[in-house]
């Protein structure tokens, strides 16, 4: 085997073939999917994420939450995602149109979050859980995110969104733990994660 050009040709061809198959074809098929109008509610789905929730998306990306949490619900009968109440239906391509990057995730050290906004609607629970996951869910191995919160001296009266902490988690008297804007944004993003809009292809 002495011929270089043949090798270049082969190398280029194989990569070009797989590029066509795994990148070009999906782009042609579902690359230009648009939002669809839902009959009952009349709005378009997926709606663009609100400003605060979008900032929360950036915090979610920056802190690498995808390395333990997935955001995809698998179909009934393939894994127990729906039986575990992680979603009312499987997630499809249209659910992720506004995500840049798409946060599918490949590990479930923590539960799936595609439908967390429906399953856990209490912002206060999310804030406490993010501050120190061992407070609401004992035994959790999720890392704490205290840098999304700040310890402040209580002013005239405790602020509205101060965390209700007790026991060894509470700050010393006269101080309170209040979420920073990043913390609030991440909570809003988690609350915005809803994948329960009925879609034709998601039966």
């Amino acid at each position, binding site marked *: 085997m002495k011929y270089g050009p043949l090798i270049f040709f082969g190398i280029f061809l194989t990569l070009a073939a797989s590029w066509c198959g795994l990148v070009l074809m999906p782009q042609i098929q579902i690359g230009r999917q648009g939002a669809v109008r839902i009959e009952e509610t009349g709005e378009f789905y997926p709606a663009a994420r609100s400003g605060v929730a979008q900032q929360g998306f950036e915090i979610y990306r920056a802190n690498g939450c995808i390395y333990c949490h997935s955001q995809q619900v698998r*179909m009934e009968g393939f894994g127990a995602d729906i039986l575990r*109440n992680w979603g009312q239906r499987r997630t*499809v*391509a249209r659910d992720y149109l506004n995500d840049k990057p798409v946060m599918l995730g490949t590990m479930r050290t923590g539960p799936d979050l595609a439908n967390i906004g429906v399953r856990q609607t209490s912002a206060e629970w999310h804030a406490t859980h993010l501050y120190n996951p061992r407070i609401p869910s004992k035994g959790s191995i999720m890392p704490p995110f205290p840098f999304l919160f700040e310890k402040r001296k209580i002013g005239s009266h405790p602020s509205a969104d101060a965390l*209700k902490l*007790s026991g060894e988690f509470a700050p010393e008297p006269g101080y309170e733990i209040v979420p920073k804007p990043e913390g609030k944004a991440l909570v809003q993003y988690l609350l915005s994660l809803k994948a329960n809009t009925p879609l*034709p292809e998601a039966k």
Partner: protein
Amino acid sequence: MKPDSSQPASPGLPPPTGVADFACNDPREPIEPTEDYPSLPLWLVTFAGALMFWGGIYLQRYSGGYAATTYDENALGSGLAKTNAVAQIDPYALGRRLFADTCAKCHQPDGQGVPGQYPPLVNSEWVLASGPARMIRIVLDALQGPVKVKGSDFNNTMTPWRDTLTDQQIAAIVTYVRTQKDWGHNASPVTAGEVAQIRAKTRNHSPAGPWTVSELLAIPEHEPQP
């Protein structure tokens, strides 16, 4: 550095499979250029062929007609989609599973709640009331403001589950909590019908937000049958 002839001829070479027997034992022996090349082991060729054949079949069978919106590989390609018969679900088991996924997050898996924050459910007078009417309302539209449970005070806002859980799911959870064996509860179970009835009756209450203790105490424990 002369070829090392002191090295004994190494017996290691396997029986040549059509390989030109290059005289490795006598380095002086020149290697004749050979025309033939070692043929592929036959079993590898048949294995590769069989694999290709299986690949084609699998690709055709499970590609859902190469459609853009077919996510279930069993659809379209062939009629028999994997039908998983919906077994008759035992409400207690469904209730336990749903409790673990939703309610346990605040009331804790052991039902003891968190002192000062989330009220306990074990032996709570609200849970073991003779009729489920108040408990179903709490699960549907949640409770806020000061409340006394087993002697200790709580003042927190609970999350409503009206839009998240179906009647059957709420009935399963309430049945599970009211008849939890480990906690020694054996109150009356609840059917989906009762939940649906209360859900319809309190439709106008839900926009006004969660119940308060005084409103709940005004409602009789047993739901008056229509």
